Structure formats: structure tokens, C-alpha cells
């Protein structure tokens, strides 16, 4: 009975296990298939590692071994620290610490238990690089061994296999896994390096303290990924630099980071390090669209084979990052907790990691980092020579896949394991090509046949370089490519590329770079290297591409389709080139880094400026760190900046010193707390400087608008003072952000676009006094979009000199600059007293006509000292900002560019006695009025650098060029309108000298005449009706005789002549009156010519009649 019960229990257990596996699989969850474990396997297993559903596997792992943190602790270290001593029977840590890469320590799962996890299709990205980390099996001695492919090719990872197989096949595999120990290929019959159990058990194999310390960020991130609730703004902190990504990303990166990185100086096909692979994995792993991803993949190994055969040998990265066609071969399926599940909901939601294969890492050797990936990969057979990874894998893969179940050797084939181990040792002993030095990337790429990029790309490239790289800043400030849509729009406007809305600028920019990428990078064998050079304009051609990579980082936030840290997916969204192995097609991470190094070197060499680069503690995202460095604030925080600008009283396009932004930002953050946690973190750590630089860029390109709580787009209305015939006149000057309509019409206020970025000024009248006091808001809704122009109420308004003809409202009176002040009548006395105090001389209000009721105006206000304003006059506070204000001259758009014939006068506000001014490095004087005496320097065409104190502006003086050559279509406008004749009212037939030249014209009901357009020279205009009488007008002073008819005109010619002949005939038989538009001029010979026309017409009619007969 007992035995029966035991048997029954056993059967029930088995059935339950199978049911659970099936249920999990169909539910889209990782399915678990437990295998029987042999006692020996149990002995090797971790102390407590029961088979668990995948969702719990990692949690249990944490109890057995240091999971993320411990694993990643060895990530960045030297190989000696990365790998446990071989004698200690430790396996390379990368295998264990990269769950996202499909690596699962043996301690995770009890030996003998094969776990099959149905992952999202995209997680084949997570499979380890086949060449570097051949799969190995878990659950037996052989399970820890790599699964080499015959011929030295890496075998297909299970992840890809899993994707390639249909559900029935997977089920079959699962059943086989249940029925017996995981099958192993014959070629796998090598001795497994001491597996995870040994690693877990062996103290020597534990990460060293140093390594653990180095991996603290990863550890912290991993811990957060496991334990912390989902981040409120995952998009922000997921990719912040230099902190590693949270949770599994860190773990995964750790696994990849220890991979040796080999790269030829002039890399050909991409060979990516495992760090690259990891970043790609992250990109792929965070893809939350498993079905879509799966749909892109071959569904059968043969398809994979064909893909492998038709495509060039996969790059190292492509093999690492798991596109099915690039990662052939598979061995076993196993349960593993995907990193996405640790990384937080945004990752876990769409992240069913396919880590079906445990790749065997290179043998633990200190020189492992130097071993080329090809050599590091385990050979297929012990005797087989180690082949290049570029060897064609197709047939091998096919063979493996076909013979997979049968080809597996017995689990305990010790000789095979020994051979494999030896082969692996040999491979690892082989010296690995060293990574090229950074200097090698600083050299430009040379290809004389390479065509320059398109004009569109070149324009954007120039915009990026001019705005960011050559931005006006002190030399000791690092340069940030803080790309955002708003900044792109501003940068484009600066180079005269037109004014676009930020979103349009982003689309335009991405399109330009994408086209360049498709037409220039992808077709070229050297791919990204083609951008590593300077164009004809002397600017590095890679700038716009790198800016796009920063824009991709800026767009990183959790959305419906992707997790927050899916960087490469975002990059692909902009490039539109498709992903290959988790990376945009043709994208080489080393070359990407090389472009950054090239730009940095160019900037240093040409301009002595420093480009912001990731710090040494970049951690796990080595390549993504480059763009991430330049966007410490992401989209969600950037979109809150207009509120900050508005709160701080900044003006659109203002350049504010970073110190002031820093102080204001601190206050604003305290008061409003408006940044996300990630944004606040960036403010709090070493990225603060980058944050301030990014905000300064945004402010400079801010158009003054922001979206209020009701979703309305608002823009401010300034007050503008100008003079006409020495009479001061006030006007409203509304700002016009790019998205605002050309004509603002709210039914009461109607005005058109004026200067770039502004509407036309609206005169302020007497009746506007109360409106100025209380403030106003004009709302219109063109095309359903609610826009608001508003001005807050005030009791005083300060006005500072501007680039316009007069001062404009400002957030204070500028020290040392001639401005004006408006205040309510009730405050005139204290205002007058205050202004006299700060000016040091008398100041009286003026009352010009049309002055708004209840207000007084002070003109010629030039503060020379700073005093606290009295109550109610805070708006008249003296601002000591040092500003360079151009006045006069003819400016060319929004750029700081002027016509050489009309250069500006530069006014310096806030100029102190101890400060100096210089133009192009030559010291210049500033007169008492604050005007720079340029001594004619600004009449010379070229770029001039004006430096006043710490303020530096780049000013361009240009000779005029003809902007318009011809109107498109101008040549075709006259088609059919070669001649036009004016005729009196009526119905007219216009006749030319050639039989067949006839046109008709009828006057309209409203007109007082008719215009006849004809493609021939008109000679006569005939008008007649059904009754008697007709008019013949001679349209030329000397009418030519009719052209002679051909002797035997063709029938079709005769038909066309009928339209010419019949009006002449019909007019003539009505005994017409003759005339001329030129008055009463009538010559007898005109009648003679007319008679010729009549004769010709008769002749034509005769011939027509004859033809009819």
C-alpha cells in the first residue's frame, strides 16, 4: 500500500509538474520543468535550491549566493579578479552574474533540474554571446560545460532556439527535459568547469572585496531593482549617468563588462565586447513587446540557417546580443529569473527573458580580458582547432539543430570535459588583440571617394556645432550636447535654417540624420567610421549624429512600448534602420565611442574646449554613458522647466549665469519640488553642473511659452516703448512662440506676426490703464488649440534696453543701461525718489498723449547704483547682470548676425569699473553710455568674438547675398498667356495672322471689358451676333497679311482653320464697323489687309466644303 501510495504520489507529482509547466507556458509565464536529480547532483546543488517557478527563482538565488550585487561585484575588475582561480573550481563569474544574458548559476537551480522558461521573444537578445560564452548545461556535471559547436562555431543559444521553435517543439523539449537529464551534445562531452555550486560553495570563488566595492553601483541598482517599488519616473533614473541602471541591468552589464574587448584599430565588422552586448541586451531586454519581437524572428532553425548563410559573419556583438539569425545553436533550456523581473515593473512587464542557455565563460584566467572573443569561445571539440568566429556557421548550425537530441553525450563524459577544458585554456592563453587606444580614434577617417553629406544634414551639423560646441562660454566650462527639441529649434534658427516648432525641429533633425545614416553610413563598409572626419566647412561631421544619440537618451522614459532604459530602441526609433542584435543596424559601439573621442579631440585641438565625457566610474553602461552624460535631465523634467523659468522671472532667450540658475533652481526645487526624483538626484550629485548647463541651453532657446494647468499654451505680452517724432509711445508686444498662429484673433484683438518670435506691437491707449494694473489674458483657439497671451498685473514696470528701437519690459532695471520705468500714479513720488537715488540725478515723470490712465512714465532711467526699491516698486529693482545688447544695425533674422553695411552698436549693461571688453581678443573701450567702441571692427565681415567680463558672445558680420534666384514655376506661369489683349465688353474672337490662330474672350458680368489671353500675336478682334452688325478691331498698328495656305492642306489642318475662317467670314458678311483700340486711328490700308484675311477665309471654307463632298 505504501509503495502504491508512493507510486501514486510520484505520478501525481509528475502530472502536476507537467500541468504547471503547461499552464505557465500558455499563460506566457516562464515555464518550469523539473528534472529528477541524481543524488550526486543534489550534493552539488546549492543548499536550498528547490525548483521554483521562474518568478521565484531569483529570490531564492538571493538566499543562496549574492545575486545581483555579488555577481556584479566582479564586473569591472581585472580578469584576475573577475574569475575565481581555476584550481578553486570556480567558473567565470560572468556566467553567473549575468542572468539577463541567460546565465544562471547552478546554485539557482538544483542540479538535475532543467528549467524551461518561456520568455518574450525579444529576450534572445539576452542570450550570451555565443562566441564568447558558449552555452552550457545545468543540472549535471556536463551542464556547466559550454556547448561548443562543431568547427568551433558557437552553437545556437537556447534563447534563439526557443524562439525559433514553435510551441509544440518547446513542449517536446520540456518533456524530454522532464524525462531525462538534459541532453548534451557529443561535442559537449567535455568536463564542465566547476559549476555554480562549486562557485557558490567555494570561498575563493566569491568576489573579492575590491571587486565588490567596484560593483557597488551595480549592486545598489540591482537591489533597487529587486526590492524597491517601481520608480515614479523610471525614465529618468533608469539611464542616469554615471549610476548604473537599476536591478538586472546592472547585473547584466556586469556579466558583459568582464568580457574581453578586442577591437582592431580600424574595426571592420563589429566585434563587440560583452559590455556592448550587455547594453544591447538592455535595449532588447527592456523591449516590452514580445509578440512583435517574436514576429520578426525566424520561426525555424532552417530559417536561422539561411539567415546565417546569407548574411555576413555576425559581429561579436550580434552574436552576443541575441538576434536569432545571428546566434545560432542551442543546447538546453533552463529556468532563470530574468533580470527584467528584478529591474522593476517597467522592465518586468514586458520582459520575459529567454535565458535558456547558460553560456560557459572563458576559463578563469587573469589574461582572459586579452583573449580575443573567438579564442575565448570554447571549441567545438577538444581536438578541433579553434576557428575564427568568422567561419561560416551555417552547416554546423543546421547539423547541430537537427541532431540535437541525439548528439548529446552522456552527462558524465569526463574525457570530453577535460578536452574542452584544455582547449579552452589554450584559447585563453592565446594573446588577445588589445583594444585600440583612444588616440587612434582621434584620427580622421580617410576615404577620398566618400561624398559629403546632404545639405540638410550639413545644416543641422552646423547648427549643432555652432550652438553647442562653439557656444559662448568660458573656456573652463565643459561643453554639453544638451539636445532637446526646443534647443534644436533654437540652434536651427541661429544658423538661419528657419523657425520651427520644437517638435517639428526634432522630426526634421531626426529625418536628416536618418537619411544620412541610410545613404552614407549603412552602404559604406566602414559604417560609422565615415563620420569620423571633418567636412568642407571644417566641422566634424559626426556632431549631428552624436546629437541624435543624445536626443535618443533624452527620450528615454517609460512608455507603452519600451522600458525606460531601452536606449538603443530609442536610437533606432530616430534612425529608422531596424535593430540587429539589439543595436541599430550598422551601429558599432566602439566606433560610436570613437566618434565621441574624435569630437572631443577636435574641440580640444581647434578651440581649446573640453567636451563633457563620462567619468571613470561610468560603471556598466560604457557606451550609453556617452549620450547619457549630456542629458542629465530627461524629457519629463525638461518639460517642467518653463514653469521654473516663469517662476524665476527669466525672459525668453535670456542668457543667465549658471550661478544664478543654480541659486534660483535650488529655491524653486524647494518651493515647488517640481522635478522628478531622478531629476532631484541629478541635482544632488556630481551631475549638477551638467544639469545647470542643460537648463541654460533650454533657457536660451525658450520662447517664453509654457503650458498652464488647463492645457493652454501661454506666452507673455511685453510692454514696449518707442518714440515717434520725439513723443514716447507705449505698445504691447506679444511674444509669438513657434507653435503660435501667424494671426492672433480672439475676436477683439487681431494682430499679425511681426519680427521673428513676436507679434506686431499693439498701441497702448489711455483706456488700457486698468488692464495694466490688473493684468489680462487674451485667449484664442485657432484650430482647436487654445493659446493665451497674458500679462500679469503690476503696479510698476521696469524697462530695459533691447534690440528693438526702444526699451522693453524687463524683470528689473539694468545697472548702467538706459531704460525706462512705468508706475502707477499713486507711486509716482516714491518712484521718483527711488529713481533719483539710483540714478544720482533728477528724474521726473512725463505724461505724453495716449498714456494709459493712472500711469506715469519715467524715461532716460540709467541706474548707476543699486538700492533696495520701496514697497510696491519691487519690479524696479536694479539688476546687475552683465549683458551685451546689440542696438541698431540691420540684423539678419534671429541669429547674432548683421549686415556688414549696417553693423550694430553694442551696449553693455552692468559694466563695472573693474571689467574690460574685447573684440576678437583686442581690448576695446566702453564709453560712459555703456557703448563699446569697436573702432570699425564690426564692419569687417566674419565672426567676431565680443567679450565683456565673463560674458562672451559670438557675432557674425556678413556681406549680403542674393537669397532668391527665381521663383519656382515662374517660367511656366506664362504658358498659354504669351499675349494679352484688352477688349471692350462683349464676346470677342481674337484672330492671328496664321490660319488657325483663334481665341475667344467674353467679358464678365461685373467687368467693364474683357481680357483675351492667346498664345499668338493677336491681329484682329471680331465681335458679332446673330443679328446684323459687327465690329472688327485691329489690335496692331500695322496688321500683317495672313499667312499663305499650304497648297493641299491636310484635312485636320482645315478643321483647325475653320475656327479661324468662320469668324472672319461671319463678321465680314455683316458689314462690320472697323476700329482700333488706339482710338480713332484708322488707315485705308487696314481695310486692304482685312480683305486679304477675308479672301483666305473664303478659300478655307471652299476647301472645307469640297472636302465634305
Amino acid at each position: 500500500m505504501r509503495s502504491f501510495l508512493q507510486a501514486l504520489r510520484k505520478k501525481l507529482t509528475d502530472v502536476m509538474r507537467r500541468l504547471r509547466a503547461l499552464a505557465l507556458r500558455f499563460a506566457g509565464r516562464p515555464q518550469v520543468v523539473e528534472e529528477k536529480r541524481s543524488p550526486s547532483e543534489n550534493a552539488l546543488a546549492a543548499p536550498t535550491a528547490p525548483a521554483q517557478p521562474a518568478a521565484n527563482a531569483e529570490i531564492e538565488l538571493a538566499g543562496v549566493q549574492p545575486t545581483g550585487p555579488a555577481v556584479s561585484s566582479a564586473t569591472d575588475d581585472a580578469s584576475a579578479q573577475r574569475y575565481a582561480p581555476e584550481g578553486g573550481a570556480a567558473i567565470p563569474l560572468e556566467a553567473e552574474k549575468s542572468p539577463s544574458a541567460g546565465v544562471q548559476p547552478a546554485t539557482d537551480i538544483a542540479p538535475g533540474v532543467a528549467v524551461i522558461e518561456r520568455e518574450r521573444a525579444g529576450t534572445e537578445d539576452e542570450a550570451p554571446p555565443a562566441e564568447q560564452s558558449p552555452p552550457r548545461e545545468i543540472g549535471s556535471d556536463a551542464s556547466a560545460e559550454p556547448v561548443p559547436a562543431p568547427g568551433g562555431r558557437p552553437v545556437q543559444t537556447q534563447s534563439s532556439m526557443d524562439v525559433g521553435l514553435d510551441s509544440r517543439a518547446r513542449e517536446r523539449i520540456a518533456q524530454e527535459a522532464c524525462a531525462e537529464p538534459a541532453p548534451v551534445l557529443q561535442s559537449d562531452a567535455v568536463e564542465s568547469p566547476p559549476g555554480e555550486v562549486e562557485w557558490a560553495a567555494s570561498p575563493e570563488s566569491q568576489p573579492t572585496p575590491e571587486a565588490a566595492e567596484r560593483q557597488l553601483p551595480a549592486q545598489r541598482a540591482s537591489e533597487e531593482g529587486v526590492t524597491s517599488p517601481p520608480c515614479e519616473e523610471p525614465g529618468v533614473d533608469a539611464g542616469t549617468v554615471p549610476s548604473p541602471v537599476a536591478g538586472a541591468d546592472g547585473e547584466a552589464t556586469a556579466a558583459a563588462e568582464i568580457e574581453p574587448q578586442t577591437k582592431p584599430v580600424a574595426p571592420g565588422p563589429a566585434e563587440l565586447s560583452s559590455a556592448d552586448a550587455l547594453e544591447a541586451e538592455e535595449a532588447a531586454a527592456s523591449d516590452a513587446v514580445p509578440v512583435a519581437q517574436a514576429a520578426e524572428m525566424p520561426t525555424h532553425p532552417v530559417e536561422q540557417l539561411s539567415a546565417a548563410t546569407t548574411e555576413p559573419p555576425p559581429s561579436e556583438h550580434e552574436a552576443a546580443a541575441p538576434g536569432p539569425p545571428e546566434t545560432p545553436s542551442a543546447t538546453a533550456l533552463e529556468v532563470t529569473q530574468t533580470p527584467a523581473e528584478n529591474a522593476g515593473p517597467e522592465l518586468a512587464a514586458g520582459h520575459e527573458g529567454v535565458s535558456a542557455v547558460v553560456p560557459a565563460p572563458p576559463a578563469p584566467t587573469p589574461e582572459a580580458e586579452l583573449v580575443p572573443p573567438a579564442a575565448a569561445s570554447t571549441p567545438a571539440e577538444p581536438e578541433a582547432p579553434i576557428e575564427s568566429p568568422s567561419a561560416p556557421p551555417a552547416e554546423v548550425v543546421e547539423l547541430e539543430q537537427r541532431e540535437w537530441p541525439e548528439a548529446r553525450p552522456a552527462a558524465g563524459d569526463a574525457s570530453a570535459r577535460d578536452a574542452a577544458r584544455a582547449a579552452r585554456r589554450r584559447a585563453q592563453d592565446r594573446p588577445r588583440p588589445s583594444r585600440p587606444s583612444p588616440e587612434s580614434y582621434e584620427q580622421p577617417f580617410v576615404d577620398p571617394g566618400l561624398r559629403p553629406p546632404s545639405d540638410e544634414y550639413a545644416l543641422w551639423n552646423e547648427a549643432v556645432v555652432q550652438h553647442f560646441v562653439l557656444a559662448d562660454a568660458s573656456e573652463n566650462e565643459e561643453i554639453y550636447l544638451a539636445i532637446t527639441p526646443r534647443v534644436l529649434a533654437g540652434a536651427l534658427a541661429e544658423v538661419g535654417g528657419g523657425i520651427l516648432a520644437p517638435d517639428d525641429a526634432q522630426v526634421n533633425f531626426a529625418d536628416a540624420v536618418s537619411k544620412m545614416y541610410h545613404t552614407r553610413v549603412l552602404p559604406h563598409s566602414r559604417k560609422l567610421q565615415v563620420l569620423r572626419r571633418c567636412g568642407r566647412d571644417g566641422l566634424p561631421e559626426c556632431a549631428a549624429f552624436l546629437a541624435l544619440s543624445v536626443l535618443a537618451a533624452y527620450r528615454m522614459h517609460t512608455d507603452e512600448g519600451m522600458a525606460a532604459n531601452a536606449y538603443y530602441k530609442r536610437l533606432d526609433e530616430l534612425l529608422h534602420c531596424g535593430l540587429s542584435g539589439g543595436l541599430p543596424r550598422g551601429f558599432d559601439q566602439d566606433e560610436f565611442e570613437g566618434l565621441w573621442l574624435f569630437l572631443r579631440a577636435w574641440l580640444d585641438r581647434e578651440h581649446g574646449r573640453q567636451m563633457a565625457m563620462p567619468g571613470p566610474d561610468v560603471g556598466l553602461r560604457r557606451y550609453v554613458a556617452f549620450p547619457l552624460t549630456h542629458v542629465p535631465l530627461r524629457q519629463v523634467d525638461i518639460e517642467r522647466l518653463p514653469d521654473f523659468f516663469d517662476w524665476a522671472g527669466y525672459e525668453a532667450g535670456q542668457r543667465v549665469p549658471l550661478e544664478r540658475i543654480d541659486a534660483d533652481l535650488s529655491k524653486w526645487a524647494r518651493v515647488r519640488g517640481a522635478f522628478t526624483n531622478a531629476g532631484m538626484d541629478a541635482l544632488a550629485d556630481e551631475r549638477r553642473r551638467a544639469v545647470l548647463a542643460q537648463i541654460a541651453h533650454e533657457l536660451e532657446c525658450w520662447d517664453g511659452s509654457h503650458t498652464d494647468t488647463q492645457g493652454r499654451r501661454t506666452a507673455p505680452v511685453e510692454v514696449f516703448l518707442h518714440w515717434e517724432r520725439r513723443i514716447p509711445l507705449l505698445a504691447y508686444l506679444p511674444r509669438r512662440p513657434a507653435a503660435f498662429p501667424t494671426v492672433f484673433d480672439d475676436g477683439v484683438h487681431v494682430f499679425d506676426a511681426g519680427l521673428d518670435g513676436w507679434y506686431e506691437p499693439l498701441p497702448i491707449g489711455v483706456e488700457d490703464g486698468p488692464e495694466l494694473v490688473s493684468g489680462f489674458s487674451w485667449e484664442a483657439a485657432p484650430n482647436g488649440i487654445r493659446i493665451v497671451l497674458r500679462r500679469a498685473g503690476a503696479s510698476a514696470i521696469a524697462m530695459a534696453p533691447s534690440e528693438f528701437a526702444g526699451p522693453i519690459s524687463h524683470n528689473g532695471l539694468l545697472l548702467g543701461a538706459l531704460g525706462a520705468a512705468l508706475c502707477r500714479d499713486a507711486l509716482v513720488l516714491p518712484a521718483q525718489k527711488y529713481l533719483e537715488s539710483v540714478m544720482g540725478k533728477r528724474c521726473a515723470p512725463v505724461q505724453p498723449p495716449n498714456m494709459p490712465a493712472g500711469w506715469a512714465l519715467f524715461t532716460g532711467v540709467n541706474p548707476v547704483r543699486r538700492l533696495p526699491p520701496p514697497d510696491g516698486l519691487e519690479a524696479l529693482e536694479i539688476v546687475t547682470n552683465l549683458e551685451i545688447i546689440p542696438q541698431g544695425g540691420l540684423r539678419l533674422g534671429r541669429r547674432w548676425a548683421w549686415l556688414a553695411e549696417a553693423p550694430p552698436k553694442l551696449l553693455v549693461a552692468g559694466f563695472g569699473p573693474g571689467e574690460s571688453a574685447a573684440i576678437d581678443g583686442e581690448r576695446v573701450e566702453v564709453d560712459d553710455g555703456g557703448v563699446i567702441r569697436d573702432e570699425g571692427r564690426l564692419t569687417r565681415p566674419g565672426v567676431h568674438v565680443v567679450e565683456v567680463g565673463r560674458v562672451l558672445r559670438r557675432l557674425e558680420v556678413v556681406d549680403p547675398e542674393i537669397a532668391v534666384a527665381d521663383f519656382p514655376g515662374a517660367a511656366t506661369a506664362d504658358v498659354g498667356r504669351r499675349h494679352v489683349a484688352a477688349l471692350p465688353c462683349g464676346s470677342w474672337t481674337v484672330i492671328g495672322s496664321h490660319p488657325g490662330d483663334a481665341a475667344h474672350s467674353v467679358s464678365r458680368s461685373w467687368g467693364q471689358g474683357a481680357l483675351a489671353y492667346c498664345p499668338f500675336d493677336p491681329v484682329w478682334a471680331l465681335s458679332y451676333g446673330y443679328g446684323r452688325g459687327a465690329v472688327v478691331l485691329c489690335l496692331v498698328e500695322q496688321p500683317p497679311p495672313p499667312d499663305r495656305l499650304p497648297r493641299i492642306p491636310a484635312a485636320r489642318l482645315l478643321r483647325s482653320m475653320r475656327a479661324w475662317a468662320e469668324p472672319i467670314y461671319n463678321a465680314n458678311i455683316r458689314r462690320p464697323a472697323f476700329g482700333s483700340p488706339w482710338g480713332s486711328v484708322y488707315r485705308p490700308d487696314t481695310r486692304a489687309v482685312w480683305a486679304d484675311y477675308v479672301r483666305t477665309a473664303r478659300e478655307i471654307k471652299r476647301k472645307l466644303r469640297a472636302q465634305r463632298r
Partner: protein
Amino acid sequence: MTWDVLLHWMTHLGEGSWEGFKDAVARLAPQDEELDDLAVGLRVHLSDMGHAEFFVGGSRRWRVLPPVLAGLAARPGAAVLCGGRTPQSRSALAAAAEAAGSLVWSEDAADGPTTVRVQGEPAALARVASAVGVRFVSDYAAALFRQLMPVYELLERAPEESAPTNWSLRSFDFETMSLVDGPRPNSACECSPRRGLPRWYVHTRRGKLRPMAKREAIYTAAMLQRVTLLRYDVESRRLSAPVKVPPPELYSRAACLCAGRRGRVEGGLIVFEEVPSGMAAVLCVAVGQPHPCVAHSVLQASKTGDHRGQPV
């Protein structure tokens, strides 16, 4: 020379807003100048001489016309440089004309940029234009006439609208040549919001308005009311219009470029000199005025046979 700089600036930009134009004028204008009048005068000059066009497509924007060596209908062998230009293009033109044996000279104008004239054989003018890289049009005025859109067609195409609510409305009175309050039938109307820019309409039916540009609206109203504004003297070849109601821009430009000279104000009239009769007729008919040479009544009589066989 000052206004040459303005033209160079406009040429470099290609296009811009009316406000930007006024701002540029203000920057170049001498002090105490009435800026609005100055800007309007410059606008008329630049438009009449074919350098730029303003209020393009009903907007408040201007754009520079492409550079053209415009042959004059009234003076064969003579041409003026129209459209955008730069100091470089001017010097290039002078050099090319000298090489082609043509004569180049400039005529200063107080109220606008210098007029650059070239005299030579048509073939030489074509060579000069080719050397400079501009188009040569032997009869530029005729080319402009071909582009004219008659006002009656504009009226037909304009959609009917209701008057904007709460806007003030004034009508143009041809007797006083000024605006009077309230709508009048078949008149040009100016509707003004409380704050901002007015709009012009033609009042055709009761309460129904058709939007048009100001000058076109006035001439359309004149057409509807059968008011004769343009007059042409065949013998002196002078076309004249009341100074308060100048012809629409394109018509005015075409009339000016017949002889390459701007209209002259004379006794309350703008007088365009040396306008060929055929062109004057086209201009008058297109702008809704009667044919200047053939009296309608005479034509009617001719059609009835009263003047059979006789000159009209």
C-alpha cells in the same frame, strides 16, 4: 545710399514681416522722421520698381523679387535692374556691361534705392544679364501684365462672409475719397476690431462681404459703381489715377516698368508716363475700369449697324 542698404538687407533675407521692414527702416532712418510715412513710401517705391512685393497673399509679409534685367516697353534697348541685388551684383553688372559695350548708370532717388539702368542692344543686354547670372526679360511690363488677375475674377473667387461681430465698419466714398461710417452697397469696407488690424471687404449684397486687399477692394467697388478712376491719354501716353486711390501694387508696378520710372504725383493724381496704349488698355480693363480707347456706346452703335462699314 541708405536705402540701398535696406535693399541689400532685404535681398539677403529674401523675405520678412512688415514689422521687420518697419523696424529696419527705423534703424536706418534719420531722426525726427515720420517712420510710418517713410516706411509706406519706401514700400511703394520698392514695389513699384520691382524690387520686392509686400503683403504677399494677403499676409503682412514681404518678399524680394528675383533679380531681373527688365527691358522697357517704352524704350527699346533700355533696361533697369529689378529685384534683389547686392553690392557685388551691382559691380558685376557694371563690369559685364562694360565688356558687352553697354552703358550702365545709376539714378539716385530720395525715397528709395538707386535705380540702375543699362542701355544697349537687346542682344548685348541679354549677354550682360547672362554674365551676371540674372534673367533678361525684353518686355518686363508685358510679362507682368500677363500675370494680372482681373479684379472681377478676384471678386468672383472671394467667398462671401458675414461682417465680424462687434467690429466697426466704414465704407469708402468715391465722392469724398475717404472712409465714411457704416456699410454702403457695392462699396469697399474697412472692418476694424477694437484692437488690432483692420480688414478690407467688398460689400456686394446686404450684409454680405467679400474679403479683398485694400486697393483691390476700392477698385472693385469702383467697378461695381461704374466709377472711373483710371484715365489714359493716348497722345501723351500718360496713365493717371487719383493719388488717394493708387492702382493695386502689381498694376502700379507694371505701369512703372513700362518706362522704368515711378509714378509722379501731379495735381492730386499719380501719373505714370510713357505707358503704351495697349498696356494701358489691359491695365484699365483688368482693374475693372472701362476700356480707355474704345467707347462702349460706339461699339453698341456699330453692332446695330448704324456705323456699318465705317470706322469706329
